[in-house]
């Protein structure tokens, strides 16, 4: 019928299913050992799957995140793009980007969306809003007591819609929503600063997520992908509840903090650095931030918004990390 | 328009005698006089008593629907009418579908009646305790008894008889549930054993049935094909004239033969 039925058009058959053998996979512990090296192990690309790829046809594996069971032949199929990982019988696909599920102990940054009965709803970039119970915050006065009806009435004075807080995940409810708490001086309402949104998967899990960087800026790297950057006032712990330190008058305290132009520039520069890292999909943690900050110093703060500069910084950080990986 | 004209057009009838009119057609608005012999009269569906507001005395009895006036033995009068909508009475057996499963103590039930909400306590089953009680899902069918119908509140259903036994009440599995006019259901339920339709059908196709006063009927035969055929027959019969029942049953009989 036609001259060029095959050949010219890029036609391939659609139903060809790739299959990944589970026995090529390394167990998660081995990946943990690689962490120090910083660079990706070569075999990860071999475990690459896309939605619809059959992970295994064998029975007896447990379905983890990023996989589903095909009802027709009971095979385990990937549902997100990523690398297959296996812990004993549990098979998961670690997706890139993706949804933030949350684990107990995660540090998160969030924004209050609703004040409800005895609880706040907090947008933490998850699939459901986080829940902060009135009983899981420290009262502004610092007392330890049962929450009274007056406390309930005055909830909006403590945290109101739009306030940004840092918190820790206390527990996960049955329906998958996350319970938060701020019962530590590290957490609570955040003062002046700026919020940057990055994919949650590029925040590297570390022991500490709250850092005072030498450039005079403190950052809270929320596991949920929200990063809070604030100027570091003299001697003040970053992210502390500003009202708490001076119990006599919180409003005056907020105004007392003098933010100099240099502070602002440092915050802005770090914000642009984080944007550059996120654009190049580099992991975000204290070291990578410092690398990026150093690399950026040869540019004006505003120049960092240029795509080519962003790419260059990403490249420099990548090299630095590779060097460090080789050194250790 | 003067008084005489109106009476001609409206044909309003007043001062009728309840006993005289038994078996006759009564229209809404017809007024009946209070029986002189001060014996107790019980009014059923379609009849209401009107009380004079000033003297607080019984004035008349008025028909509020169209239907045939019937009398039951001890001075009970009611109207027999064709209707598709259900009016609840205590101890009625009704069929329902679970509409919602709330976290509280009740299932809310769809009883196929717009005006009526109904609920069923999760404990109102045979042998149910706080710990052990049947776990029903949304969409399951239940056969229950009306325990109470408080004004402005949902009907209260129960799936146990006062004796504590289920005696047929409870959730129904499999089969098919469908709606027929309420008067057809009434005919099914009140028919004498001789001309009971369900028994006649049962002789052709053995099947389980449950008939709710609210117009829902549940049928379960040995397989899907027979269930659908029985359901279809009942739906056809509900629209048919009682004289034609025989021909429909014969037709049904021959269809079933071809299937089995």
């Amino acid at each position, binding site marked *: 019928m036609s001259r060029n039925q095959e050949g*010219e058009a890029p036609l391939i058959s659609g139903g060809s299913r790739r299959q990944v053998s589970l026995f090529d996979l390394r167990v998660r512990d081995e990946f943990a050992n690689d962490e120090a090296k910083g660079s990706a192990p070569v075999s990860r690309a071999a475990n690459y799957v896309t939605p619809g790829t059959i992970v295994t046809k064998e029975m007896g594996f447990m379905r983890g995140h990023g996989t589903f069971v095909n009802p027709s032949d009971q095979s385990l199929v990937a549902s997100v*793009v990523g690398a297959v990982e296996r812990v004993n019988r549990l098979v998961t696909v670690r997706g890139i980007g993706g949804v933030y599920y949350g684990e107990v102990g995660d540090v998160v940054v969030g924004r209050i*969306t609703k004040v409800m009965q005895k609880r706040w709803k907090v947008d933490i970039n998850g699939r459901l809003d986080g829940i902060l119970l009135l009983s899981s915050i420290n009262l502004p006065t610092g007392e330890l007591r049962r929450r009274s009806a007056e406390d309930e009435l005055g909830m909006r004075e403590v945290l109101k819609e739009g306030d940004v807080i840092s918190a820790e995940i206390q527990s996960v409810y049955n329906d998958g929503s996350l319970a938060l708490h701020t019962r530590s001086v590290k957490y609570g309402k955040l003062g002046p600063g700026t919020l940057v949104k990055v994919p949650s998967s590029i925040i590297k899990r570390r022991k500490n997520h709250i850092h005072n960087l030498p450039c005079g800026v403190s950052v809270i790297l929320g596991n949920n992908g929200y990063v809070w950057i604030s100027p570091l006032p003299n001697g003040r712990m970053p992210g502390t509840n500003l009202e708490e330190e001076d119990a006599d008058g919180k409003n005056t305290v907020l105004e007392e903090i003098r933010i100099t132009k240099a502070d602002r520039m440092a915050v802005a520069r770090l914000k642009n650095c984080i944007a550059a890292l996120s654009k190049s999909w580099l992991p975000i943690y204290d070291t990578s931030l410092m690398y990026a900050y150093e690399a950026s110093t040869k540019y004006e703060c505003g120049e960092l918004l240029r795509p080519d500069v962003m790419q260059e910084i990403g490249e420099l950080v990548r090299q630095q990390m590779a060097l460090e990986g080789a050194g250790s | 328009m003067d008084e005489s004209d109106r009476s001609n057009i409206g044909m309003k009838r007043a001062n009728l005698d309840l006993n005289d009119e038994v078996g006759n057609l009564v229209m809404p608005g017809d007024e009946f006089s209070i029986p002189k012999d001060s014996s107790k009269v019980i009014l059923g569906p379609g009849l209401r008593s009107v009380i004079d507001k000033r003297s607080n005395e019984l004035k008349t009895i008025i028909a509020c629907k169209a239907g045939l006036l019937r009398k039951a033995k001890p001075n009970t009068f009611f109207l027999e009418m064709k209707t598709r909508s259900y009016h609840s009475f205590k101890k009625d057996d009704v069929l329902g579908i679970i509409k919602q499963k709330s976290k509280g103590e009740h299932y809310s039930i769809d009883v196929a009646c717009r005006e009526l909400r109904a609920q069923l306590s999760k404990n109102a089953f045979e042998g149910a305790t706080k710990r052990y009680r049947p776990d029903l899902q949304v969409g399951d069918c239940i056969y229950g008894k009306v325990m109470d119908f408080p004004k402005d509140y949902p009907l209260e259903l129960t799936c146990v008889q006062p004796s504590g036994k289920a005696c047929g009440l409870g959730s129904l599995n499999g089969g098919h549930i469908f709606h027929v006019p309420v008067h057809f259901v009434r005919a099914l339920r009140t028919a004498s054993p001789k001309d009971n339709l369900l028994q006649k059908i049962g002789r052709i196709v053995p099947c389980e049935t449950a008939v709710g006063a609210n117009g829902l009927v549940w049928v379960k035969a040995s397989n899907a094909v027979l269930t659908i055929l029985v359901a279809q027959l009942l739906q056809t019969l509900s629209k048919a004239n009682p004289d034609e029942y025989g021909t429909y049953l014969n037709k049904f009989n021959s269809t079933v033969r071809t299937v089995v």
Partner: protein
Amino acid sequence: MAYRTHLDDLWEQQIRPDGRTPHELRNITCQMGIFHPQASGSASFNIGNTKVMAAVYGPHEVRSSQKKHHNPDKMIINCEYSSATFSSNERKSSTKADRKSMEISSNLRSVMEHIIIPDIFPGSQIDVYVELLQDDGGSYSACINAATLALVDAGIPIRDYAVAITATMSHSVCMVDINAQERGQCAELTIGVLAQSNEIIVLELANLLQNFYLKDVLDEGIKGCAAIYKILEEAVRQKFNKMEQSLV
């Protein structure tokens, strides 16, 4: 007397008005993460001069007005299609509320509901926004491809890729990927399939097509879909290679 035109000559040699052979696709480019990091996932899909952008937000807490009637065990998928006022030859004043856009929105939603694993995020909402920038034929199929790519970019678990292409039969030759010029002269059947199972999930017909030809046109379209799938896969793989580093 009918006289032969230049196009008829071309047809004899099986060359289409824009110089393609019948089974040739137009130039395709796609890019993921165009709204990064504002949206959870985003993608653009260009096929010839047809340009579509898609963005996915969520899953997040249900925020729309549907909340009242919403069953907490279910997930809401919300799709909104709009075409830019300058996307086609006739400039349109408002494009969001007209019947055509509403139809495409609701069709897109039904496709998305089938590829996203059902009720994996109970009580949450996923928003898919698709914007047609330029329409040169095959816009609905481009929307489906862009939306699929954006879902993959967002990391939302999906069963399979939904890929779509247009196909037709003209002068008793099956053709794939119809452009706006050809659309005026023949039927345009939009065919979408699930890439792995080859099940048809989208069918949309403009103009008249002989029922007799349907099988051939479907076969042609399914082949075209396979080609599109390969291109989408390539885009996804490139993105993965770029992001590999951050996987820890």
